[in-house]
């Protein structure tokens, strides 16, 4: 617990930030608005879309955003800190591109929780709710709707586009739980770095020509004879499917929509900038989907569970990661989309302070670093801190609930909303609906 904490639970630094935010005309209003949420009003959305980059396995905080140069060798590891564009903030040495744009995003260093297994950690961070029973590492569990499914539920669209994309797979707890299959992620498993990549199902398959599709469509219309029961009271499910076919046709035949999915239309320079690898190209595709109006996109990127040979792996992995995320933030910014797009980068937890005998770090949920950019979040700040050796978040300690509440508030969803399970049980969307004030500015 921070000794700077006042009786309202807000640290002095936090007040300072709020004050500054107030000067620019947003902070105070937002603070008041958040206070008013208990009365059931939904917050105004600051972000229309969210890109969540999930680093599956739990990325090390030491070698990324929370270097500890003063810790003993067995803790600080092989890498050195580097200065960033923001005086006083340093990252680990392989994040050079992100360091150069550190004024464009925030890093939370002080989220901690009590779930040290992949299944449980994923569940807690992906849903904002701890798993109800002990959950092991290999588990895929769901006790609560994920951030993405909830967003799809509250922000469903009429443009024929799925509301929640997940690439290349759904993360363990990224599903809809009691909200139902309608709000499950639309999974795009294919690799956008391949020449023949197409987003599945949203455009014509393979070699099928538009003229033949149009012909099929006309044929379908001509032979579709099942009588519809048009009185709404009859609740004919066929009528609903008709609407979806109309949306699907619009999507398939709209050049703008098709362009959004067609990563091949992107300038080669931009594709290079994101990195010519599947992760880089997925990030680029995510940006295109944001432009097409998709509210929630999860990029699930495996291979961050560095129990063994962490430094070799990080030397290989971090530069491309750095390149992709920095490019994504810059690109969104240049296109004027960063303000309306919330970008999140996180995993299940951080990693153990002491380097193990195999040269790796193990699971550690007492500390983790989370990158937050865009969506009206102020840039250039570090929120909270771990102790000097990185064992634990100690200053401005935050919970996965605070994190989830921030994401929902940004997207205009009341984190204090009450949802009903099929059992009829009222369930709070987030049990602690307090967003992270520093990010609400």
């Amino acid at each position, binding site marked *: 617990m921070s000794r700077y904490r006042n009786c309202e639970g807000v640290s002095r630094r936090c007040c300072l930030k709020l004050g500054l935010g107030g000067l620019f005309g947003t902070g105070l209003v937002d603070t008041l608005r958040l206070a008013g949420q*208990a009365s059931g009003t939904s917050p105004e959305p600051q972000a229309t879309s969210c890109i969540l980059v999930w680093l599956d396995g739990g990325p090390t905080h030491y070698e990324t955003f929370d270097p500890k140069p003063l810790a003993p060798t067995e803790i600080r590891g092989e890498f050195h800190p580097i200065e960033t564009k923001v005086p006083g903030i340093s990252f680990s040495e392989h994040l050079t591109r992100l360091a150069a744009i550190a004024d464009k995003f925030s890093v939370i260093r002080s989220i901690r929780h009590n779930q040290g297994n992949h299944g449980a950690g994923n569940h807690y961070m992906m849903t904002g709710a701890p798993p109800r029973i002990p959950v092991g590492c*290999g588990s895929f569990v769901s006790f609560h709707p994920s951030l993405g499914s909830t967003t799809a539920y509250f922000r469903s669209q009429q443009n024929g586009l799925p509301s929640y994309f997940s690439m290349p797979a759904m993360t363990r707890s990224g599903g809809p739980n*009691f909200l*139902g299959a309608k709000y499950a992620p639309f999974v795009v498993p294919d690799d956008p770095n391949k020449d023949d990549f197409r987003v599945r199902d949203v455009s014509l398959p393979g070699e099928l020509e538009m003229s033949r599709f149009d012909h*099929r469509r006309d*044929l379908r219309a001509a032979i579709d004879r099942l009588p519809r029961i048009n009185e709404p009271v009859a609740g004919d*499910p066929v009528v609903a499917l008709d609407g*979806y076919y109309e949306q699907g046709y619009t999507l*398939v035949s709209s050049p703008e929509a098709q362009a959004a999915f067609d990563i091949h239309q992107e300038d080669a320079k931009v594709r290079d900038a994101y990195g010519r690898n599947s992760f880089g190209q997925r990030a680029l595709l995510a940006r295109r989907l944001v432009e097409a109006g998709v509210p929630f996109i999860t990029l699930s990127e495996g291979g961050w569970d560095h129990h063994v040979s962490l430094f070799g792996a990080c030397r290989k992995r971090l530069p491309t990661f750095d390149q992709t995320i920095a490019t994504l933030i810059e690109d969104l910014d240049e296109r004027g989309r960063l303000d309306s797009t919330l970008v999140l980068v996180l995993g299940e937890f951080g990693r153990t302070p002491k380097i193990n005998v195999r040269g790796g770090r193990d699971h550690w949920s007492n500390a983790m670093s989370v990158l937050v950019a865009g969506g009206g979040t102020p840039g250039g700040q570090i929120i909270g801190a771990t102790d000097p050796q990185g064992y634990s978040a100690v200053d401005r300690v935050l919970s996965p609930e605070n994190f989830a509440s921030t994401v929902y508030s940004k997207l205009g969803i009341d984190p204090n909303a009450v949802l009903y399970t099929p059992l009829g049980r009222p369930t709070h969307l987030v049990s602690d609906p307090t967003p992270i004030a520093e990010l609400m500015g």
Partner: protein
Amino acid sequence: MMRIASLLLITVSGIAAYAEPTPAPVEWQPDTIDVLPADVRLSGLSNRQQLLITGRQGEDVVDLTRDVRYAVETPEIVRITETGVIEVKAEGRTIIRIEGRGLPASVTVEVSNLSEGDALDFERDIQPILGRRGCNAGACHGKQRGQNGFQLSLLGFDPDFDHDALVKEARGRRVFFAAPEASLLLTKPTGVDPHGGGVRLEMGGGEYELLRRWIVQGAPRRQPDTPTLVSVTVEPTSRVMPSGDGQQLLITAHYSDDSTRDVTHLATFQSNESAVAGVTESGLVTAENITGETAVMARYQGFFAVFTASVPLPGDLPAGYYNNLPRRNFVDEHVYNGLQRLALGVSDPAPDHKFLRRAYVDIIGRVPTVQETRAFLDDPSPEKRDQLIDHLLAQPEYAEHWANKWADLLRPNPYRVGIKTVLNYDNWIRDAFRKNKPYDQFVRELITAEGSTWKDGHVTLFRDRRSPDEITTIVSQLFLGIRLECAKCHHHPFEVWGQDDFYSFAAFFAKVGRKGTGLSTPISGSEEMIYAGSSGGVRHPLTGELMQPRPLFGGPSESETAPESQSGTDPRDDLADWLTSKDNPFFAQTMANRVWADLMGRGLVEPVDDLRATNPPTNAALLEALGNDFAESGFDIKHLIRSITTSSVYGLSSLPSDRNVVDTRNFSRHYRQRLRAEVLADSWCQIVGIPQDYPGMPPGSSAKELWTHRVKSQFLDTFGRPDPNQDPPCERTTDTTVVQALHLMNSRELHSKLLDDASWARQLAESNRTPEQIVEEVYLAVYSRRPDEEELQITLDLYNNEGADRRAATEDLLWALLNTPEFVFED
């Protein structure tokens, strides 16, 4: 019979929640008037009485409570409101005259013992106010961590806890004896102090005054000899209410000393379907424009009573209409009775091809092949529908299809409990359906399972659900339709179940022993033995009391059927005896309701596993008859399916008439359903002629044979299958989504199957069939019918146009048909 002769059918769109009822037309004159209660005795404790004035004319019943004039002979003794509520002023005796509607009536009122009840009792006098004002609701102070540090037991089921919370916690600020008016209990709900829940109490009103007096009296927990509440009743219990009609409810509390009290003003009301009939805070029910039936629940202090409103369709059917309908078995009789109450018409019988497709999809989980379709359509036998049902029930696919449904409910995630274990469990479930194992035996074997997870698949239930409470919720919900989950942590809000019931039931599973290696994710690959042990117990989480196994109902008076646990035996055997007993109606009815919902598109009770007084079936007599029929057949699932599918009602068309378009739950027509994911996948592959390869399954396996929902399939994911990661496992939804439309329309996987060199399209194109023959084959395969003239005209153009390519034409025709609702839905 209908008083309101004609009322235009109004489609649903934004119904006002609490519309004022329309009074009966002035010219309407009752033959008789009933006044309830017939004579009124009031006292200090029971100082108010809602009157119910009911007019009758032939079969018509009208609530006139708000529609007559009241006059008190001695106004010093009582006053009466326009809504028929008598309020006490002084002791004495008087008469209230009721005028209007031509028939004078009166009621005697006697007021005595005004000082009785001056000493306030927390449970009797204070808690009802907290309940009525919503203080202890789940969204407010009743939630698990309370609200703003102040927690009450959910809906007031724990008076000791609530009394402590008010009187002992918060350093005496909630009730402040030195200055009662400054108590937070009074300043917060009146809005004097800021209150997150808003203003809930009128300053200086009757309830405020009662709370204040209670604090002045020292906030007593209880008064000596206070009778306890034993039941709550509602009057009337049911009524046919034409659209626009009103009905005031009267809620009476009954106490252990035989005294009663009108608690209408303290009860909370909730309509299960406010589009059919809404209810106000004061218990006035109004029939809306939607035809149907709904339960209206009144709750007072943990007890509840249910009023059923039936809102019939305006207008009349010809005399003898129902008598002339075809009755093939008991199902029809019960359905028609229900329809008659609501004056709903019945749709025409569905044509043969629809019946054929329906039966195939429902019973064996795929559409019929071209050959099977031809054989049925060309069969002249009048018995062919019944013969078809028998034929389908004898197919091996029957077992796979129905086992697949049960796998949804039982089969856990192999990543959690182990692959071999789940495979064995899946085999055990399938084997039961292959043998048509009687349902009681199926359940008995399951809940008393012993053996090795590597040999005896059904012990997986106990590997997956490791503690007695985890087993309790699944057993009660699956086999009894009783959702005990709530009662694990607090009293069930709409039911009689409390924590005592939950943990006594859980005690049946206290002695289940486990040996070997437990769950060790991610593989959980080891073997585990499940056996009936001799030690172990379940304790009540609050009292710490060691619980004795006790069934949920069947108390001491039914000791013959309610087993006593004996040492040395497996308590689970006693549970199985009680559970599967023919005297336990819930057991048979829950399964009957599940199967009914599968076949008819909607349960008699919805959700299908939520049978309770406050969620009554749409046709209670039918559910009872189905349950009895099922039990008498020796719990033969095939018999149950046969009873339903050989009824006339099962074979009705989905197309409504103006006399039943509004019906969505009384089975006056068939309700369309999107084909279940596996049925759609298997049917699609069958038609196109290219099976789907599922990883880890033998070639040619169908979707319904998959041993776990974790087998990868974009198709099945798109059309929805339960997520075994979810706890509790969820029923699948039959929603349609845009993603489903997109998948059928554009999926590359489906596209390449359609264009495959081995596909049926190519076979047809390269055969020597004429275009007419090809079109007929395709229609038979996809729609289970032959094309009509016009359809033939349209589709033949595909082949006869200049430059037409037979193969491309056939592919396009197949694509088009497979993308229409006539394929995607069971109609």
